[in-house]
């Protein structure tokens, strides 16, 4: 029963036309919710959360650094899954999704590296060290840029998606290295504060704004992916009847 439902969704969302109608209904709701959650998290964290016992106020960059990093990692995982579906099942929507996921993820990875450097100077005493976490995060940014480049350098979008999908899948190995680098080897970077299992080592007064700004960033990412995917769908289906009708009707 559950399997049947999943299978039906897969086929429904696999249809560009259905995706377009579905996202038209979803976006007017999702966009304001995402903006609201993001604003609440950031303002709460930057202005109202208490200062840290060791780092004072400079720790507040965590409310930008951690959401950006987690978004970049999750986005890459999603892009890897889309890549697998695109390469094995040749599903058009997976190709579209891969193309929609990459730019925002690359931007988040860049923000993560930049805020990390700015945070590192006052706390560690250096902008950059070639430790495992920082190096693997830099590689993640390069993987994103590589996927974007492959998508653009091959003219046929279907062939481009296959090449980029392969690169996206291979890069998933690096995501695992980024995640566990602070546990497997000695790094300057701290270990994970938020833990999937077990108690997080952050005071609740700081944890909640952090979780909310993370959720807000993920929702904004989702909005961005939907908007980009819609544009890509319309471009790819430009010769189909429904898109012609849509364009004639002024987008309605």
């Amino acid at each position: 029963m559950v399997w049947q439902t999943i299978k039906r969704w897969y086929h429904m969302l696999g249809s560009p036309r259905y995706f377009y109608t579905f996202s038209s209904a979803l976006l007017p709701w999702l966009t304001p919710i995402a903006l609201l959650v993001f604003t609440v998290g950031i303002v709460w964290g930057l202005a109202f959360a208490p200062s840290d016992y060791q780092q004072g106020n400079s720790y507040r960059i965590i409310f930008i650094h951690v959401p950006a990093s987690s978004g970049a990692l999750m986005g890459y995982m999603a892009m890897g899954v889309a890549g697998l579906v695109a390469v094995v099942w040749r599903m058009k929507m997976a190709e579209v999704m891969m193309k929609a996921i990459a730019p925002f993820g690359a931007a988040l990875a860049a923000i993560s590296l930049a805020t990390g450097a700015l945070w590192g100077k006052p706390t560690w005493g250096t902008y950059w060290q070639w430790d495992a976490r920082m190096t693997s995060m830099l590689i993640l940014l390069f993987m994103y840029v590589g996927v974007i480049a492959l998508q653009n350098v091959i003219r046929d979008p279907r062939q481009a998606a296959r090449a980029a999908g392969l690169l996206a899948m291979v890069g998933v190995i690096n995501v695992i290295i980024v995640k566990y680098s602070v546990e497997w080897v000695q790094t300057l970077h701290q270990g994970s504060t938020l833990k999937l299992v077990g108690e997080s080592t952050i005071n609740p007064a700081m944890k909640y704004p952090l979780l909310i700004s993370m959720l807000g960033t993920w929702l904004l990412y989702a909005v961005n992916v939907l908007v980009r995917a819609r544009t890509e769908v319309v471009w790819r289906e430009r010769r189909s009847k429904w898109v012609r009708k849509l364009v004639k009707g002024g987008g309605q």
Partner: protein
Amino acid sequence: MNPVRKQRLLVVLAVLIGLGIACGLMFYALRQNINLFYTPQQIASGEAPLDAQMRVGGLVEPGTVIRNPDTLDVTFGLTDGKGRFTVHYQGILPDLFREGQGIVANGTLVSRTRFEAEEVLAKHDETYMPPEVQEALEKAGHPGAKKAGEYN
């Protein structure tokens, strides 16, 4: 599943597993080089080479920080509970440097007990809490309490 897709899936999975194993082996082989620093235990056991540029990391031993009042010279003991040695540094220490703090120093090991640092970086752990909470923990003698810093 359609046989063509099945074959594609198998090829992709084989490539991924192969690459995963290759990366795992590489990571394992390079583990010592990927580690950012040597620990005091490794220094004590003679794993770290003398007179070579390297990084060491450990905790600043409480009560061992000696500052020269006229110059920027400072010496302190670095320990991980299994080994210890003295670090000498001339320069400005990062704000988070204090007794009991984790640090990473870049420099040369002059002998098994003395390290000449050119750069000292402060590590911080994954614990975040407001100063009041930290004070309350310390007052109650909670084992999770850390030494309060002068940094505000």
